[in-house]
């Protein structure tokens, strides 16, 4: 079958690879109808995530139809249309039962390595570093889905792939980002970073009652979309210096009630020194330092909440913890517990309350995946997110 294969920095190729097969009675094999490129794929493309092996099949956002099921997958049958969470969870451990599926105890076969890096292991991930299991991904014609009886969500035929596919990760991430902000009606919410998750988080914050949303980014096209879809007040962050003041001006000197960091590290290096070095170079919102987190802490209202949706993976320098303490802030963060949000969000999509489809600015056949990577990487032609069709 054809699949997008990682070869190294800025080198992904569409190649013939063996078709996946069932390895466990709880597996399913899915025939992929649509798959997307994500921000994490850009990290892999940049070669900054270690633990990738040449030959790895990429892709953590995908959906399709059931091709084959294991004996214990009694809730699915061949031909069912399904969407798959980007993280793999066993459904039976304490964390899964608590709804904390991103922290599944059992789904990462290389958990020992994750424990060494992070002190604990979370769930396994499709198409990502071997620290998270090295599961082959879904930018392919077929993909094996472990614990399909728990993870796969059946979807009705009448809703388009473009609306369903964001359920694999970015829409749940956006929802959890807003939920972690504990938004109350009337709140002012600042969303730092208007990539796909940030743009969707604006929609989610609105649904949760945010009265005013301030969108921060340095890409004019993204700010335009934030204003258009989420009626957000755009703040261009080209000049980082004035941002705290700007946010105070937007909020009568109070600061935003909730700050959502939808940027994260976006690091261009994972070693401690690289991060320290780059922290000094913070120039842009989508930079390579904890610049956003610092700004969020400095601007957030006293007693407010900071919700971190962007990824952090190493150490960061100069976090103004004194300001966070003095202002009594709450910080919440983490990988998205995708499983618990998929069905409720599917309902909102079906009811027309949420429409994540416009996030896909470009559509390409799977065979042109390398071009898609380059385009999304350079943010060419207003590219926000690329959908691939096998």
């Amino acid at each position: 079958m054809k699949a997008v294969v990682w070869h190294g920095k800025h080198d992904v190729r569409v190649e013939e690879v063996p078709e996946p097969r069932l390895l466990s009675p709880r597996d399913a094999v899915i025939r992929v109808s649509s798959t997307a490129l994500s921000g994490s794929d850009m990290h892999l493309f940049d070669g900054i995530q270690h633990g990738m092996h040449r030959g790895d099949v990429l892709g953590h956002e995908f959906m399709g139809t059931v091709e084959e099921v294991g004996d214990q997958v009694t809730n699915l049958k061949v031909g069912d249309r399904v969407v798959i969470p980007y993280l793999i969870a066993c459904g039976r451990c304490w964390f899964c039962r608590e709804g904390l599926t991103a922290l599944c105890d059992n789904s990462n076969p290389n958990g020992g390595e994750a424990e060494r890096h992070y002190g604990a292991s979370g769930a396994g991930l499709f198409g990502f570093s071997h620290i998270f299991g090295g599961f082959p991904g879904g930018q392919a014609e077929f993909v094996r889905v472990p614990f399909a009886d728990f993870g796969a969500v059946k979807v009705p035929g009448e809703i388009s792939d473009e609306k369903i596919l964001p359920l694999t990760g970015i829409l749940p991430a956006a929802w959890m980002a807003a939920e972690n902000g504990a938004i109350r009606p009337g709140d002012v919410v600042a969303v730092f970073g208007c990539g796909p998750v940030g743009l969707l988080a604006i929609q989610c914050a609105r649904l949760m009652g945010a009265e005013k949303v301030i969108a921060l980014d340095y890409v004019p096209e993204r700010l335009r979309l934030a204003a258009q879809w989420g009626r957000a007040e755009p703040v261009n962050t080209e000049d980082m210096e004035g941002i705290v003041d700007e946010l105070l001006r937007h909020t009568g000197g109070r600061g935003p009630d909730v700050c959502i960091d939808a940027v994260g590290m976006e690091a261009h290096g994972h070693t401690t020194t690289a991060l320290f070095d780059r922290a000094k170079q913070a120039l842009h919102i989508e930079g390579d330092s904890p610049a956003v987190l610092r700004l969020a802490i400095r601007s957030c209202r006293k007693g407010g909440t900071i919700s971190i949706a962007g990824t952090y993976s190493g150490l960061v320098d100069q976090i103004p913890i004194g300001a966070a303490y003095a202002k009594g802030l709450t910080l919440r963060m983490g990988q998205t517990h995708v499983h618990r949000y998929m069905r409720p969000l599917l309902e909102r999509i079906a009811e027309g309350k949420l429409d994540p489809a416009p996030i896909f600015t470009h559509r390409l056949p799977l065979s042109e995946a390398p071009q898609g990577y380059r385009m999304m990487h350079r943010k060419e032609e207003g590219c926000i997110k690329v959908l691939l069709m096998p």
Partner: protein
Amino acid sequence: MAILSGKHKGTTDVRVERDITVERPAEELFAFWRKLENLPLFMGSVDAVEWIDETRTLWKATTSDGKPLSWEAEILEEKANESIAWTSVKGSEVETSGSVHFTPAPGGRGTEVRLIVRFIPPPSERVIEWFWNLFGEEPAEQMRNDLRRFKQLMELGEIVRAR
């Protein structure tokens, strides 16, 4: 937590200790572990454990260059549903001892399992090859993965595979 004492490659003991919580009753975990022939199912560094008599077992492994390595061990002590301790017999090429302990976890969260393994030097080059190559930079990591596989086997009935 893992506690590693001793120098690498050899002149002092290497002792690795690791805890994991498994959501099954202590009796069940004890019974599974007491059948030492089950251990290779989740221990990455051991190929087979065969019974010689009621307390003695033959452990088989493979060095990184593909040569077989084996040693005899005997059960020193056991407390039903609580602990099992073993040691290699005198004169074995691999001199090792270990114990596993099962304690009910608070809040009905299953059983806290503690595994302690010690290797006693001076090991032969072959043992270093086997032990060190498998354990990589940090000996505790292999044990972490062993215990995680044990947990998967007990909680899910299978060991999760990426490919």
